């Protein structure tokens, strides 16, 4: 049964914790309303890491996402992923939605925001996803991130959002290209060491991903547009996939990013537009709830984005 809230009823919109939708687990209260077992397991793990129950608005946003991805037929392609928003703590944010937990390298609690995600420092901080670049087949793979602040400044080299391989054969990466003296458009290494970048410069915040299901071409989606360049795939590197830095080929981080991201996923090929829609909705529902105290589930995505932008600018509706 789909987990949807279509009513405009104010009780459902407020998203505050409802005792009748809770249960006692051990000595604490945990949510128990998610009808989806994968969402339920994830949310309980986040609450355990946080040491506190999540609000219903966050629970509902995550449940919507998982149920929606399953409905779209893309859920099984996601093999490693973290929602880097919504959780109350950094530890909660690093609980994997799917797959192996990432290894935290130098992030501290101050680097994490419940609304906008995890920010890099461009010099020392990154996640090791602990998923090897060749864990997914050569012509059946994807990477994605949701960016709330693009890589910026003048790092002297291209900063990477997510990467396996250091521009060698079979590299997979999403990054921002660099040519002295400036950063350029968002760029992709699509299971090959041939760079593609067709999007705007500067890029926009939002979903950025690539997916390959063919040997001869791949798709990538950046700033709301999908591109389909022809680049022949190569045997993928076995390097672990790093987040907010590049794996140099010897499991050492380099090309750190100062971007802020609120989601990443690694896995098999999928429809990037569908994933974009789900991830964009997820992060905006979470941010909307944390801004307004209202459950975002029944609102149009344009409403969520508009209200969140107003709060980000310093406004309030209270």
């Amino acid at each position: 049964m789909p987990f949807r809230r279509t009513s405009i009823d104010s009780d459902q919109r407020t998203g505050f914790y409802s005792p009748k939708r809770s249960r006692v687990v051990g000595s604490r209260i945990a949510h128990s309303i998610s009808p989806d077992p994968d969402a339920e397991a994830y949310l309980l793990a986040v609450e355990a890491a946080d040491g506190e129950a999540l609000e219903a608005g966050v629970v509902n946003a995550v449940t919507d996402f998982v149920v929606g991805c399953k409905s779209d037929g893309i859920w099984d392609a996601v093999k490693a992923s973290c929602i880097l928003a919504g959780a109350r703590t950094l530890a909660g944010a690093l609980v994997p939605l799917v797959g192996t937990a990432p290894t935290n390298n130098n992030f501290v609690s101050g680097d994490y925001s419940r609304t906008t995600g995890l920010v890099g420092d461009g010099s020392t901080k990154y996640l090791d996803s602990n998923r090897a670049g060749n864990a997914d087949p050569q012509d059946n793979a994807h990477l994605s991130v949701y960016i709330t602040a693009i890589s910026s400044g003048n790092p002297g080299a291209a900063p990477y959002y997510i990467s396996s391989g250091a521009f060698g054969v079979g590299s997979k990466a999403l990054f921002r290209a660099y040519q002295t003296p400036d950063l350029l458009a968002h760029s992709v290494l699509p299971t090959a060491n041939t760079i593609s970048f067709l999007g705007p410069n500067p890029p926009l915040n939002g979903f950025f991903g690539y997916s390959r299901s063919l040997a001869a071409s791949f798709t990538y989606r950046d700033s709301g547009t999908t591109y389909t360049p022809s680049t022949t795939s190569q045997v993928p590197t076995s390097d672990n996939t790093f987040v907010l830095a590049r794996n140099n080929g010897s499991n050492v981080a380099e090309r750190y990013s100062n971007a802020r991201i609120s989601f990443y996923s690694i896995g098999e090929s999928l429809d990037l537009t569908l994933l974009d829609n789900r991830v964009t909705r997820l992060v905006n529902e979470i941010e909307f709830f944390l801004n307004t105290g209202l459950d975002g589930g029944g609102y149009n995505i344009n409403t969520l984005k508009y209200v969140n932008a107003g709060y980000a600018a310093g406004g309030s509706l209270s």
Partner: protein
Amino acid sequence: MTQVLSLVNAFDAFIVGCIDDGTWDSINASCIMAGWSNLSGALTPLAGPQPSGFNLASGEYSRASGLKGDGASMYLSSNVKANAFNISGLHMASFISLSGGSFGDALGYQGNDSLALLRYYSTNNIFNGYMNDTTLTFYSSGVAFTPTFYGFSRNSNTSYTSRVLSSGITHTTTAIPNTPSFNIGVGATILNTGLITAPISYAISFYSIGTPLNLSLLDNRVTVLMSGIQNAIP
């Protein structure tokens, strides 16, 4: 919480309504300049680029009635260039929430060859202006002021429609090609010299700029939106 809920519901009903009406994609730049706690929220773009404020004072913003001009130097640049649209493919719209002062332009630009502006004379309740032409056209005259949607839309070289005080009129004027590469003003007309003219002393609480659309449909949505905001603010 009730206020937040009411405001969000008003925004959502407007957006979903415009999508249902088929007008949403024609709104290429817009701000809802009411409901928000401060100017920063009010100048958050609903669509398109963030406007730039010139000589704005926070005291000129009201959550219920929007942005009131000073009749001198205060205005917004929409950051939408007038030549971003085809000469016969433009709409500009506003919501005037409070009368005041003598006259001013809710939106406008004036190029070398033609101009487009929405002018309102508070002193005698005259609404007139130009729409990518050089023919001064009256949209309403002498009808008592009430808060109103005010806009026009041109999708033809030979005619366009205006709408104010819930009344729509089709005007026969010829669009004159123009290539102004400067921005459309909000709360004043921006001239090709970079200066402004006709800064408002009245208040506006909504504007939109974009491709042609059905003004009656947009009027209905904007009017309901403004009513919802008014009702939500104590």
